[in-house]
């Protein structure tokens, strides 16, 4: 802890001058090591637990490396809870929500980015404010409305909620991507006689495509990971998404079967991690474009 804070100071300066002494460097590496350990150890422990046989989990002195690694926990996890079904529900909900969100958000983001007017201000304001809703204030009326529409316990109802829930961030990212497309390109196309629609389709859209894909994948992950709305809206196990089903492993009194719990939790993370690894750079830059410049 002390090494971390003290090195914070000495590091602030050296990035281009390189004038810090070797002690300063050593402190920086020590701090970096501290962060790496802090960030990595819970995840490594999850993996370790997932591959341990039951008797090692019951022993009083747990080890980092399983002595007799096994896949039993994974098998047991699938036996105990409908994980495949839940994964499928998550996939359907997240993919539909992401697709719809991107389709409706892209045109609006285009208008927000290209016209600086009250719309852009109002929409940006809404984007920021909507980040701050306590969801309980949103979910109670949504629950009542969806109930009267008989959309409780249906993936369709959840998708509707997810679309609106992911719109602010999708807009935020997309506005950044649109601004990165030079206006001159569109104007040049207009000069060449291309109509408005033609310009959008043949000039702007191809340049925006990677950003749209990144936004869609990000919306997918947030929906894949979402818990609160799914918990409230989905009642029966065959309709529930993966995060909700995972909590069933915890049992009533919090007493959990650790091995299968870890195995299932590990599996649920893999899709997000994979997608995130692919689009990490784009998300970061898109988020930053939105965060810093909008």
């Amino acid at each position, binding site marked *: 802890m002390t090494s971390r804070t003290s090195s914070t100071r000495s590091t602030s300066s050296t990035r281009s001058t390189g004038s810090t002494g070797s002690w300063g460097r050593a402190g920086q590496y020590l701090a970096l090591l501290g962060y790496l350990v802090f960030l990595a150890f819970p995840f490594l422990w999850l993996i370790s637990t997932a591959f341990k046989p039951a008797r090692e989990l019951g022993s009083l002195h747990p080890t980092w490396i399983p002595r007799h690694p096994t896949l039993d926990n994974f098998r047991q996890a699938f036996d105990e809870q409908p994980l495949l079904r839940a994964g499928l529900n998550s996939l359907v909900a997240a993919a539909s929500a992401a697709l719809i969100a991107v389709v409706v*958000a892209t045109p609006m983001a285009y208008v927000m980015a290209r016209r600086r007017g009250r719309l852009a201000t109002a929409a940006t304001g809404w984007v920021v404010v909507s980040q701050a809703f306590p969801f309980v204030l949103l979910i109670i009326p949504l629950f009542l409305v969806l109930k009267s529409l008989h959309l409780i316990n249906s993936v369709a109802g959840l998708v509707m909620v997810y679309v609106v829930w992911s719109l602010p961030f999708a807009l935020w990212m997309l506005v950044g991507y649109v601004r990165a497309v030079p206006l001159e390109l569109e104007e040049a196309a207009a000069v060449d006689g291309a109509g408005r629609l033609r310009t959008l389709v043949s000039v702007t859209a191809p340049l925006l495509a990677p950003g749209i894909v990144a936004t869609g994948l990000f919306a997918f992950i947030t929906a894949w990971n979402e818990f609160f709305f799914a918990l409230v809206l989905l009642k029966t196990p065959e309709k529930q998404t993966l995060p909700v089903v*995972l909590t069933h492993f915890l049992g009533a009194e919090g007493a959990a079967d650790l091995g299968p719990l870890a195995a299932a939790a590990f599996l649920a993370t893999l899709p997000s991690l994979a997608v995130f690894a692919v689009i990490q750079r784009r998300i*970061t830059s898109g988020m930053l474009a939105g965060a810093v410049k909008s």
Partner: protein
Amino acid sequence: MTLATATARSGKRSGRRSGKPPDHGAWFLVLPALIPILVLSVGPLLYGIALAFTDSQAGRTAPTRWTGLLNFRDLLHDTLFWESFRIGLLWAVGVTVPQFLLALGLALLLDQNLRFRWLARALAIVPWAMPEVVVGIMWRLVYNPDAGILNETIGDLGLGDGRDWLTGLGTALPAVIVVGVWAGLPQTTVALLAGLQNTPHELHEAAAIDGAGAWRRFRTVTWPALRPVALAITALNFIWNFNSFALVYVLTNGGPGGKTRLPMLFAYEEAFRYGQFGYAAAMGCVMVAVISVFLAFHLVARLGGGEDG
């Protein structure tokens, strides 16, 4: 509705400015997003606020009635709610402040030419990509009194016997706060890193040549450039943390003895366990009121720091 009229007006104005005829196409571009926003977000929010002034309950056969400020009066005397409110504030501050300091340190490190910094960048993504439920489960495995790595490490280091962190009255909230800090570290780091990369390098070098020490350069060059981003992200983090739910739901479900019962957990139980929709909505309104203060702070920070707000 006001949003819609603003749209039309601004559309006309910018059309005229650039010498083109007013462009009605903008409407068709905006509507697909605007309709779901109004129907499923703005509408329910207003409905939710209205519910706070009613006696709406699950399974009530009599029609819902307006009760004016009754819910709020009851809330004022609900010591359990204020206790959870206090815990919510403690949690939000307890998570936001260390999160900011750690993220600042990490961002400064990642801004350097260090070997292995790619590894830190890659690892920093992990908490971000994980479902909150999994983060909660993962840390329960770490904290597990018998099979967890934390107590084992404490024992190995000879620091004592270890405890049942998540069920101890005094340790539950701090234990949960550590998880909150861990989970939110990536976003904060990325935001601060972006802010750092916007700071002018030349100024930095000039200051170094002038003989300014590291701390001084941080205070006079880095921090002033970073401040707007830092304030904005801190305000947002506070709001998000105050509103958080899934992490603590999985870790402790509000226990032991309500010691980690955040306002969202309280309101969730009130609404979906006891069916008190009107009362829970009133709780939501009180939370909004508090959050608005920080939101205003955030907006000011953004407008003060952004190029065009």
